[in-house]
């Protein structure tokens, strides 16, 4: 059979869909033909996906669906159906496992839904489908029969070692460059955290592969793809400490020399110093912890079964072992509030993490928090439409103690902690007069001004932006309360540019700003000028992702400035040689001009007007 598997696009890029690769590996093993379209990586319009589907002409088209990609997936399915009718459409993945009923009813194109892991059930399905046998006995599927939804019993795979390795070759145009190999060493999670859907999606029973099998997979990946890095995607990699330790020992023994990290998070109560040290020795560079809340009451109420004390010690162990530690936090857990988030931020600061992210809770149907919010609060949107932690902010629900506006504030507070602190400091200092701000922004999309408005009501803002960006600024000048807006007038002449900048920065200097914000997408050369000429009292760099604000005395900033100066010095000889050669080129140029003047000529065109036609006049113009 010919099978097309589709990973629909979402906001987060950079990883492959491992579930589909597992399915492909299994199907290819059994002699089927499989192509995976990773639309999340290709960044294509759904029409072109439909064209591709038509070209490939498969018998079965399968979609892997997360709640955040569900809308897109259904749209693509419809578009394909319009063009190419010969395949049946099926779906699987977390969203389908949770919400197969609604998905089936609302999307008649999708004929069968696969619940949970489908490595075995899908093969069974394909085989029966090929032979024209009844599909109704396939385990773990749901379908519509005369208007009612039929579900068959789900079976979990106990012997994970028996599964073939995932096939990445099946992905169209797969880019092996800098491939971070995704590795699953176990499936399932026995805990009952109230906000999490993993127990429902992957099963409450934890099942693990043997460390030997996973190491063998890594060895083969190293051979085929020359990988240097892998990531462990387990939900509970360290549930059994001994097994995790054994994995690390085998990594060390086999001298695999791979970097790896656990960014899907491990549990803080499932880590001791010995394991941390072994992980480090085995090549692990960074570990994430789901901390969720620093507010003891809230933390206890989410039924994680850990204590804040275990978080503190886990962070300590990870640091002692010499790895980086990252924390994940949730805004909007039941019982939380704006003040609660302030407490969480304090707790997070006390941990001195290497990185952190805050996300607004997405109450997935069939989780406990969903029921709580439905009972006590208000769901504000279909969860499929939520932005799912992307840079556009959506608030999918609100609770009596945590209204929508507060949640927005909490989001900005957590995301822009340093900016907020800096502005608080200035606000206290200048209790009356507005803070004078200059913002230099040549980036493509900065969210700075939006953020600024969240923290300050009274400010005096000037903006200097690139001509490309000015569109937006001019349009929203009033809305964004910009006093003086200037776009860089680009001239091809170096000296003219220099003069313009010097003049402008001199005016800026006289205005004596309290803070200068500088977006790092802006030409780096200009930063030196800005610092030297405008000489702001404070300055902040807004980094590429728009989230981090660096300060003048940060190591990172100093390193950056140092690097720029070094680059300048290194390039100097080349620049000087080029300058000298320019004169030679000018002489050649003069001769070229003379050649054109004396040697080349031709007819001129008389362009048409409404009354006269086009003419090529054979007139010599010398």
């Amino acid at each position: 059979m010919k099978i097309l598997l589709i990973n629909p696009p979402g906001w987060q890029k950079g990883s492959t869909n491992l579930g589909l690769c597992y399915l492909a590996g299994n199907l290819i093993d059994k002699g089927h033909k499989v192509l995976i379209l990773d639309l999340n990586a290709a960044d294509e319009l759904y029409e072109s996906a439909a064209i591709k589907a038509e070209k490939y002409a498969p018998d079965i088209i399968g979609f892997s669906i997360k709640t955040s990609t569900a809308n897109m997936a259904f749209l693509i399915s419809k578009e394909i159906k319009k063009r190419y009718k010969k395949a049946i459409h099926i779906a699987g993945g977390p969203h389908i496992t949770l919400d197969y009923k609604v998905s089936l009813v609302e999307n008649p194109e999708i004929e069968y839904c696969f619940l949970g892991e489908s490595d075995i059930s899908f093969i069974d399905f394909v085989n029966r489908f090929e032979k024209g046998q009844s599909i109704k006995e396939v385990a773990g599927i749901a379908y519509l029969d005369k208007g009612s939804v039929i579900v068959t019993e789900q079976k979990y795979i106990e012997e994970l070692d028996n599964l073939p390795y995932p096939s990445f070759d099946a992905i169209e145009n797969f880019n092996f460059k800098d491939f971070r190999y995704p590795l699953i060493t176990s499936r399932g999670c026995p805990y009952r955290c109230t906000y999490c859907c993993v127990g429902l999606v992957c099963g409450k029973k934890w099942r693990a592969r043997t460390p030997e099998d996973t190491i063998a997979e890594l060895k083969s990946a190293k051979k085929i793809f020359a990988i240097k890095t892998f990531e462990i995607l387990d939900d509970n990699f360290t549930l059994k400490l001994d097994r995790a330790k054994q994995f690390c020992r085998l990594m060390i023994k086999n001298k695999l020399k791979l970097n790896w990290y656990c960014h899907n998070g491990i549990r803080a109560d499932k880590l001791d110093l010995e394991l941390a040290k072994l992980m480090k020795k085995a090549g692990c560079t960074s570990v994430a912890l789901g901390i969720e809340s620093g507010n003891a009451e809230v933390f206890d109420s989410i039924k994680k079964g850990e204590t804040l004390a275990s978080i503190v010690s886990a962070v300590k162990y990870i640091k002692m072992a010499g790895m980086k530690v990252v924390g994940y936090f949730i805004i909007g857990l039941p019982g939380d509030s704006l003040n609660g988030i302030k407490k969480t931020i304090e707790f997070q600061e006390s941990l001195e993490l290497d990185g952190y992210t805050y996300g607004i809770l997405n109450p997935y149907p069939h989780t406990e928090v969903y029921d709580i919010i439905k009972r006590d609060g208000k769901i504000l949107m279909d969860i499929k439409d939520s932005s799912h932690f992307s840079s556009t902010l959506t608030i999918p629900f609100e609770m009596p103690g945590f209204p929508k506006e507060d949640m927005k504030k909490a989001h900005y507070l957590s995301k822009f902690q340093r900016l907020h602190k800096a502005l608080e400091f200035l606000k206290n200092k200048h209790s009356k007069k507005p803070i004078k701000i200059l913002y230099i922004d040549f980036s493509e999309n900065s969210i700075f001004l939006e953020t600024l408005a969240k923290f300050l009501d009274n400010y005096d803002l000037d903006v200097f932006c690139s001509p490309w960006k000015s569109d937006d600024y001019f349009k929203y000048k009033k809305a964004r309360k910009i006093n003086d807006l200037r776009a860089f007038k680009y001239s091809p002449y170096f000296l003219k540019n220099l003069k313009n900048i010097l003049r402008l920065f001199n005016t800026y200097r006289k205005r004596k700003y309290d803070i200068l914000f500088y977006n790092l997408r802006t030409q780096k050369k200009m930063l030196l000028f800005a610092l030297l000429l405008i000489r702001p009292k404070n300055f902040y760099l807004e980094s590429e992702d728009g989230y981090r604000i660096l300060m003048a005395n940060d190591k990172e900033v100093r390193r950056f400035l140092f690097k720029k100066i070094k680059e300048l010095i290194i390039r100097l000889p080349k620049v000087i040689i080029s300058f000298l050669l320019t004169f030679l080129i000018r002489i050649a140029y003069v001769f070229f001009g003379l050649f054109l003047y004396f040697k080349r000529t031709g007819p001129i065109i008389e362009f048409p007007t409404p009354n006269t036609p086009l003419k090529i006049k054979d007139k010599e113009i010398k």
Partner: protein
Amino acid sequence: MKILHICDHYRPIGGAEKLLFDTLEALENNPNIENVIAMHDYPENKTTGARKEYIINDLDIQPISWNLIDYLIRGIKSKKSLRSIIETEKPDVIHIHNLQNPFIISESIRKTPTVRSVHDPRLYCFNNWRILRKDKKICPYPLGIRCVTEGCLWSELLRFSFEGRCAIPKYFSYLLHRKIDKLIVESEAMNACVLQNGYKKEQIAFLPNFTKTFNFDDVMHRSEKYGNPEENSILFVGRASFEKGIDYLLEAVARINIPFKLYLVTGGPAMPEVYSKIQQLSLSAKVEVLGILPYEKTRDCYAMADVVVVPSVWIESFCLVGIEAMANAKPIVAFHTGGIPDWLIDGKTGYLAECRNIEDLAHKIEAILQDRIKAKEMGINGYWRVHEKYNIETYLAGIMSIYINAIEHKKQKDT
């Protein structure tokens, strides 16, 4: 037949690129054709997987005057990479879309039949747009003496510039193009320009642009759905730059005496000037800037508009926007310049105004807005004209015969 397409930008930024993608797709409808593409490594250029795609470093390089050594090194590198692609792919024809790099041209014409689409005057104008530096008039001269006397050649020399381009490699590219098997021109005006510059008649192939056509009822239905009978909507689609004439348009609409709303689907470096012009002419309430939109969204704008204006003030090589508007059954008012009169029939599919005559432009826009019945009729005329002349079938047949002619031409030359 295997065709190697060479282009600089491989993403929808302007008319030329839209035509490139439409052409590729159209060709791929024919199962006997295999497209391979080589593009410059701009960060925004992405492989699509729709066809075999190569990214070449330094395919589209500019001869910056103060750094010619760098240019030479990169040019030779690009030549080498193209050679290896030609060797592995062995294309039957090479189609160069929008590129001046002489190293690439010389490599293409070495062994393989080569076709070149001419989309703008860059091929034979040091100034790129054939607009004179001194008085901004349209340049009627051939490459030569006037490039010197009009200052098109020297300005870069007088001041030190990071962008100043050396014209000598460009001249080489111009000469190399004489050896290309077929030059595709899109309009009578461009044909004249190419001939004027010494390219041979046999070398030139005439092939106007094409655009996707839609079902008539669907187009009419969309116009009804998106149009606003209470409003006189004028639409401009194009780059915000001098040659596209957005300034002239703003001046013209400021003279219109009936209520209207002007929508600008535009963007680019000249936007600050556009905004200040809007303010200066007190048009803020009457003009809405919609930014740069993908074609699907632009189609909605076409459907909404009562008239589409093409105020280009250079030798427009064809202007795809014109036939796009016509495919969406909209009347057009445009300046009489370049390839525009090829597709705009005065009084039948819209009105031609005298080039750069603001009064005339204003008057003709007003005339269309005031006579809705006539306007609709013009739109429908335009729709059918596109159906007849600028459709994919005609274009495909044309381009295929150009490829075949090029192959034959090369064979003859070799024997």
